[in-house]
């Protein structure tokens, strides 16, 4: 692999170079190459047990690759802990939102900024999130477990934004949401993206994901089988057959 495998000249923000991972003896990711560039909206598609969640965990440092390199801003971060990656701009919005249910909305947001020490900056970012989600502001002292699904999604995204990320990893953002909310949710993602945030989205809802993404990968049993622009993937007959329910 070349040092900076770039498609448009810039350095990748977050990158996988020939990554392999194992759970015990089981081989999960097999020679995976990925690259996320600043300001991009990319998506990773794949069925159950294809290695999507492992990819996210490896990007975030909760799983260590057995071989290959995870590269953040040109630096190999294989051995760095999650906290290092969060400080340097990688944050995840977990699957099913998973808020700290018995803590208040405010506390959830503050925990997103757990590793930050700049009080003023945190207050400023809180205000930004209130602007983005006025409804969240109305519920600050409420226990987050009592919010509706859509509101929880807002808090989950808000919590992730509180760490001032440069790339947002989203694990199945549309899972468990009512159809009307899925649309709203994708609009929200686009809105955040429009502000310049790089977004890496793992989705089963391929149609919706590809409609807003720039590029995408398809993962099958731990191997990247397709790597193309979103439009090309949309047009790919194989993909249409297996993911978009046509065929």
């Amino acid at each position, binding site marked *: 692999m070349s040092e900076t495998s770039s498609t448009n000249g810039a350095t990748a923000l977050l990158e996988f170079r020939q990554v392999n991972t194992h759970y015990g003896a089981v081989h999960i990711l097999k020679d995976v190459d990925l690259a996320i560039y600043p300001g991009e909206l990319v998506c990773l598609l794949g069925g159950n047990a294809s290695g999507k969640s492992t990819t996210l965990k490896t990007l975030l440092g*909760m799983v260590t690759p057995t071989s290959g390199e995870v590269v953040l801003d040109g630096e190999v971060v294989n051995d760095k802990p*999650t*906290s290092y*990656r969060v400080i340097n701009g990688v944050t995840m919005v*977990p699957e099913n939102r998973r808020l*700290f249910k018995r803590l208040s909305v405010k506390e959830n947001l503050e925990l997103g900024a*757990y*590793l930050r020490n700049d009080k003023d900056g945190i207050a400023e970012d809180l205000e930004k999130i209130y602007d983005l989600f006025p409804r969240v502001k109305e519920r600050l*002292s409420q226990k987050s477990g*009592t919010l509706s699904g859509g509101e929880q999604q807002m808090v989950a995204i808000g919590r992730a934004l509180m760490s001032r990320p440069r790339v947002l990893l989203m694990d199945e953002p549309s899972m468990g949401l009512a159809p009307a909310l899925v649309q709203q949710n994708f609009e929200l993602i686009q809105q955040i993206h429009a502000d310049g945030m790089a977004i890496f989205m793992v989705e089963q809802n391929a149609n919706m994901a590809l409609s807003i993404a720039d590029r995408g990968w398809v993962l099958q049993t731990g191997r990247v089988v397709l790597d193309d622009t979103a439009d090309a993937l949309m047009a790919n007959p194989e993909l249409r057959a297996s993911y978009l329910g046509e065929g």
Partner: protein
Amino acid sequence: MSTLTAPMPSSALDQDWKKVLRWGLICGGALIALCLVGMPVELDRREIIERYLSLGYVSVVLVPIAIGWVSASQVVLEGFESRKQGLFDLVTGLVVGVIGGGLLSLLMVALDSWNLRDPLVNWSPKLFRFLTYENGMGFGAGAWIVTCGVLGLAGASLHVMPRAVRRIVGIVTLGLLSLSVLEEAVSDVSEGFGLEWLTDLIYAKKGGLTLTSTIVVGAVMVVIAALTNGRVKAVTNRYRDMEGVERQKASIILFAVVAVLCIVLPMFLGKIMNELLANVGLFLLLALGLNIVVGLAGLLDLGYVAFFAVGGYTTAVLTSPNSPWFAPELHFGFSLIFVVIFAIIVGLVIGAPVIRMRGDYLAIVTLGFGEIIRLLFMSDWLGPYFGGAQGITNVPGVDLGFATVKGTDPRSVFYLVLFFCVIAIYVSWRLQASRLGRAWMAIREDEQVAEAMGINTVSAKLMAFVVGAVLAAFSGAVLVAKVGSVFPTSFMILISIIILVVVIVGGMGNIAGVMVGSFVLIGVLGGPKQPGLLQEFQNFKLLIYGMLLVFMMLKRPEGLVPSARRSRELHQDEFLQDAWLKGDKPGIDDDADDEDAAPVPVGDGGGEEE
């Protein structure tokens, strides 16, 4: 505006017989279980009202009253107009009581005909005599059926009488009962204030209230209850409605009052009460530590007693001249440094391997470690160092220069314990609001996500273990200085469990709750070996603990004192409901005040269709 009406019974006999039968069976079952546990017979010796009523009969009599009350209570459904309670409910209570009494009579018949003493220890002629008032079978059976029926009726009638009357009846009954049951404590306190003449007047020589004093004290209580009616509630409501600075002020005043009481009161108390307070303090210290581990960090540690033991043994070895292997005879204060060091080491040693486990697995492994530590201290292998089963004796008290704290002077022990409790409360309070405290709560809620937020979960969890360990070790150190000796048998697994019950019953993750919990459980019921205010119930303590735990889990899982956070939320829910009702159904709004004009502050129904 149409309000739905609950289905009305057409007559008093139009009962839900299935429900009545069920409660009747529960009543009978509870009565029989109580008898076979042996509570009535054992407590029969203790007089409540001289010659007329013993604690044994009280324990039986309370069952049909309580179940009569419960069976006749109606579920108020939201949106339904609730039924006015009356004859219908009285019949429910009566029938439930009669069924319960009938079952008790069946027990009497069985007692008379078979001998099941082998499996059931309390299946004795004594129980039979107790139940029949020594007047023969027929009389006993008839009397209990009638009595239980009347008591069930009495329980149900509590729903029918006006609120004020109900309150007076409750206060007088509970007041007289506690005055009589707590005779020893009351005497002890009044002695300290020089009021012996009063207690001599109230109590009979053999124990229990005299009939005259019952009537007089009862009358006084009626007057007090009538006078205070509604006031107490008004004060608590006012406190609850306060916000911000005002509430803070009130809290500080409340805190100051408690602090002054803690310092001044023991001076007037006798040995028994001071001993009791010291025990409450020791367990409070343990409970505060466990509260950090379980309540804040969510790590279910069932081997918590291990750290208690480490504190105790460290102090004993370092201060006692009788320590078998190494006896530097340090001063207590100096040995505390080593107590902290060893507590941290043991906390890390036990914590490190188990910290990656979750939930049930963590509980089981810590349970094992708790036993291992105790068995190590007991073992022949470490016998030469820690004295094995003989333990270490002759531990000196704490020499403070101007006074010596030792077990024979429980007042001084209490002050020492108070000192450590104040430290523990301050530390817990500061930690709760700290970054580490927030990390603990995040881990408790969702460990994986906490990790993804960048929280170092391993070190945060180890910190919880270590802080808890140090507090428990302090408690152990004070215990050993108080008792003057240390034995492996002082550190049974039961202690871990009782402390956990204290934390759960009081209110997990909440300092005030833990304080109330340890006072109610250790102070009133008593610790594993320490007598509480209700000394008569000594043998049934664990039974009561268990019942209390089950009751709390079902009815009030947030504990006796719900945390401030929780009560705020409950308030908010009500507020939201009010706002919603006002916003969408103006017809229901009958208290038209200026709030009406303002826009609904928080709309729940408004945004849903976005």
